[in-house]
């Protein structure tokens, strides 16, 4: 019974295995990125950037049809332009980052919708918005695995710089020449993961595997390293459970994965030992010192 739900589909159907590999890659790299996004109080920036990549994807689609490399390159270009331009606007003008990001992503989104409506059909738009986790080809899998590898390698190699830039950017900027570039590098990684994830989950949901496991992980521990590992792990668990459930219930794969991640989040919100509801509302007996 349990075997039929959780193991059978993946043994019997290659497309389920491919979906699992793609979703796992998205999850293990997205979770740690999401932790840094929440620590930087940019939980909504991921969402904004996921909208911002739309015109790039649409232009890629117009030029080359349903070609993953073209749509990916377009999405990357659009996302990076928005991330860099809004970051630079925040750094060098009096405007704060949230306002400049909102301005740039809204213009980008409007541009994307315009392009899609002028040239494409609604079916194409749905494909871009909601992805197709069950139709991942080799190119898509390589892209997902590649972006996850780049992300994890960058986070591991520059862990100290990412942490210091999140905690005290003025200090890092003065202590190391790399400090100036860390915010841009970070946003570039976010864009890379969103663009890679859109094929599997769609532009709107790719951000779900970044933010939900990260928000959940922070409710369990105060240790940064543990939080990062836990976020990747909870994301992987959600990806697996979501795919299994979607197969058995006949539900669309992308939304199922995000709903599973949502369930993990709500459980953490209730029971998390580091700031969950039960822990906060019914504190244990106080200690002597």
């Amino acid at each position, binding site marked *: 019974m349990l075997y039929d739900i959780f193991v059978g589909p993946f043994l019997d159907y290659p497309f389920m295995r491919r979906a699992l590999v793609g979703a796992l890659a998205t999850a293990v790299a997205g979770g740690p990125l999401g932790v840094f996004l929440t*620590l930087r*109080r940019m939980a909504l920036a991921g969402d904004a950037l996921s909208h911002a990549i739309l015109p790039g994807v649409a232009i890629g689609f117009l030029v080359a049809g349903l070609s993953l490399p073209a749509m990916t390159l377009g999405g990357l270009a659009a996302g990076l332009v928005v991330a860099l331009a809004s970051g630079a606007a925040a750094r060098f003008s*009096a405007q704060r980052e949230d306002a400049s990001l909102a301005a740039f992503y809204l213009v980008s989104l409007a541009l994307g919708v315009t392009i899609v409506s002028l040239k494409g059909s609604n079916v194409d738009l749905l494909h871009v918005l909601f992805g197709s986790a069950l139709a991942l080809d080799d190119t898509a899998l390589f892209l997902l695995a590649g972006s996850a590898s780049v992300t994890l390698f960058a986070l591991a*190699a*520059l862990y*100290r*710089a990412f*942490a*210091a830039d*999140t*905690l*005290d950017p*003025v*200090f*890092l900027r*003065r*202590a*190391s020449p*790399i400090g100036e570039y860390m915010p841009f590098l970070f946003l570039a990684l976010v864009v890379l993961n969103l663009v890679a994830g859109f094929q599997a989950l769609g532009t709107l949901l790719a951000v779900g595997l970044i933010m939900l496991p990260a928000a959940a992980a922070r409710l369990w*521990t*105060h*240790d*940064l390293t543990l*939080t990062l590992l836990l976020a990747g792990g909870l994301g992987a668990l959600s990806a697996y459970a979501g795919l299994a459930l979607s197969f058995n219930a006949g539900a669309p794969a992308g939304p199922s994965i995000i709903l599973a991640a949502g369930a993990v989040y709500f459980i953490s919100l209730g029971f998390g030992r580091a700031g969950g509801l039960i822990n906060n509302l019914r504190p244990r007996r106080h200690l002597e010192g």
Partner: protein
Amino acid sequence: MEATATALMPGRSLSVRAAAITLENVTIGYDRRPAVHHLSGEILPGELLAICGPNGGGKSTLLKALAGLLQPMGGHIARDGAKARDFAYLPQAAQLDRTFPISVQEFVALGALRRKGIFGRIDAAETASVERAIAGVGLKGFETHALGQLSGGQLQRALFARLMVEDGGVILLDEPFGAIDAATTEDLLALIAGWRAEGRTVVAALHELDLVRRAFPKTLLLSREAIAWGATGEVLTTKNLSLARTMAKAHDADAAYCHRDETSERADAL
């Protein structure tokens, strides 16, 4: 003009060079409005200088410019060959996210980043200097505590410990004793006196005048312009202080262009 400081803490043979800082007709501000206006003067190596003046008088702005975080709109800051980022700088409190999951030990160790770089390993010597700094500021026993568990005074001690690990020849402090109790202030003042004994230059923005009179030999009284700059006793006079208060006025919405440089150039030419 060079002072060498040996050993921030006993057992350390590193010598520190404190650079002389020269301000030449420096104007610093925001949106064309000068917050510091036509300031000239020199901070000698090993000097202990307090910057006093009314709120909005330009104390923080001047420190930011010394730290290289603001570019002067006019004039020039010479640092005797040192780079602005070589100066250790402690901004006014509350710019840190205190919910960030990091231990006191890890936080203080960030001070070594400058020497070790992003990829450098924190070796035994650095670990020892972190331990000495934590003990030096009186936070022994708090190494594994999270930053968010510290009180305001303890956080300030941790920030001072990070400064000690940075081991800079010039140390810039912006209101280091704001919202800190008397005992903590005395401890931190003792640390500053120790830094001075090692030949480091310390420049601190302060508003407690009694404390400045007691612990800082030199003072710059700043109210957008320098009211007085010199020995503390001669600067903090009743006359100067009341002058500083009257000069602290709001922005004039219809302010005209400042022509002072042109007239002084003309005077030079004559």
